[in-house]
């Protein structure tokens, strides 16, 4: 598979009737980076992510994700990416280990590979003593860690994290981000959405969506410099002020 970019998108557009949800976006995500995908509610982030994860087709434009074409190979994309939903999507009545094995199976992994990888990840994320506990008995922070673990069980090229820290307190958010760093360190690329502007600073590069377009894309420090802002929150405000779409 080709080397440098895990995502390459050109002129991607999605229309619903007369409404253009995603309006001609082009960008790349570089292998091994943490890419922050920012924007206001309704800016088109979810629609764009659905196309990148093989869940919907664009109206026009082209794109490659993890080396596969979003038009013709969406099933292969699904197999080679990880996705952690902002809604909790594990089986609450099953144990930690059962959840891991089920999702490993869904991704088509061999049983002994699932077991080996499960042990490796549970050990790394500190889950060994809880492996036989039912998921519904775990504290919220642990559920989130587990959902993340499950999303990378098949060692994907890239993992999509959709607001992984929504509603999470400052201490637990930081623990989660150290986990993201750790996983990216092991070679997985991370594509993250967040509404916490301090978390945007933890990304290598961030894009800002406004009214379906990507109005800015760069490293946090370069963006702050370009807009003469002291924080990414300020950059966000400057860009969001130009938005025509409002909720």
């Amino acid at each position, binding site marked *: 598979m080709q080397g440098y970019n895990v995502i390459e998108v050109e002129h991607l557009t999605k229309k619903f009737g007369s409404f253009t949800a995603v309006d001609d976006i082009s960008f790349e995500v570089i292998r091994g980076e943490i890419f922050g995908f920012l924007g206001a509610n309704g800016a088109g982030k979810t629609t764009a992510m659905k196309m990148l994860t093989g869940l919907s087709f664009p109206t026009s434009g082209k794109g490659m994700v993890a080396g596969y074409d979003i038009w013709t190979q969406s099933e292969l994309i699904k197999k080679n990416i990880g996705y952690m939903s902002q809604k909790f999507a594990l089986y609450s009545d099953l144990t930690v280990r059962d959840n891991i094995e089920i999702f490993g199976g869904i991704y088509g992994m061999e049983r002994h590979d699932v077991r080996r990888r499960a042990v490796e990840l549970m050990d790394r994320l500190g889950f060994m003593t809880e492996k036989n506990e039912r998921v519904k008995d775990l504290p*919220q*922070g642990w559920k989130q860690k587990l959902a993340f673990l499950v999303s990378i069980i098949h060692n994907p090229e890239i993992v999509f994290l959709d607001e992984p820290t929504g509603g999470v*307190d400052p201490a*637990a958010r930081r623990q989660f981000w150290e986990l993201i*760093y750790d996983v990216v360190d092991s070679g997985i690329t991370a594509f993250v959405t967040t*509404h916490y502007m*301090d978390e945007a600073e933890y990304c290598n590069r961030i894009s800002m969506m406004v009214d379906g377009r990507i109005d800015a894309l760069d490293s946090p420090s370069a963006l702050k410099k370009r807009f003469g802002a002291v924080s990414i*929150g300020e950059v966000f405000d400057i860009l969001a002020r130009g938005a025509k779409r409002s*909720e």
Partner: protein
Amino acid sequence: MDIMDSIRVQRLRKGYGRGLPPAVDITDGFSVSGGELFGIIGPDGAGKTTLFRLLTTLISPDEGDATVQGLDIIKDYRKLRTIIGYMPGRFSLYPDLSVKENLDFFASVFGTSIEENYHLIEDIYCRLEPFADRKAGNLSGGMKQKLALCCTLIHSPQVLFLDEPTTGVDPSSRREFWETLARLKDTGMTIVVSTAYMDEANRCDRVAMMKAGCFLEVDSPRNIVEGFDRRLIAVRSDDMFRLLQDLRSIEDVGKCYTFGDTHHIVLKENAVCTPEDISCILSGKYGHTGVEAVEQPATLEDCYMNLDG
């Protein structure tokens, strides 16, 4: 009882059995003044939602007593429910009813009409009006939140309870939401709000830090920040991830955590080292480049991160 108190809690305990520790176990008591904007912050499982459900009479305490606007949360629950507004953390409107139908419904439940209290919701509802006929279930996240607040306000409550109202809301919409709260506060409404955002907690008159069912500290954001008694240094270098680990291995560093584009270190109680000392160690011993270290006053978020000492 102080006539100015809107909420008064003597003590309050609620457990969910199964040998678990109580979800709420407030022994010292607290009160919220009339017209106060009172924030509650704390980790998941701290008991914030249980406390909301107790004060809004949705569940009864195992023990303890509390009043809201002078009404007992157990004896006077029927009357109490008519004068409070509660916006739960989970979207709980009728997804199959339209925006307008939801609002009409909640108004009629409280024996009022949209027209009667329109002034309270006007600045929020004007944004929703173009979508008045859309089903609530088909609204975007930000709009659902606006509608939920309208439905909570439509009977002109005296006390407003908001459980993490801005989770999943973008920064600009959050700011608008808090501007609305400020306007409501100006009408004399008492507002109790929980949040995971420290910039929002900063806008409250007082903030309660809650953990394991109790309030650890209740004070104005300013007093909490001024009470921070350790030295704090903001550090950055060209390799932020490695920096985090390296800072943690320095003897005088008590705590180290990410903080936007810097890492914050909180020095141990009797540590004497200066920002320059830290810079030297990082460049010399660990080979970091582009090192900057500056002593800074703590923010509310720093106080939260250092709650357990």
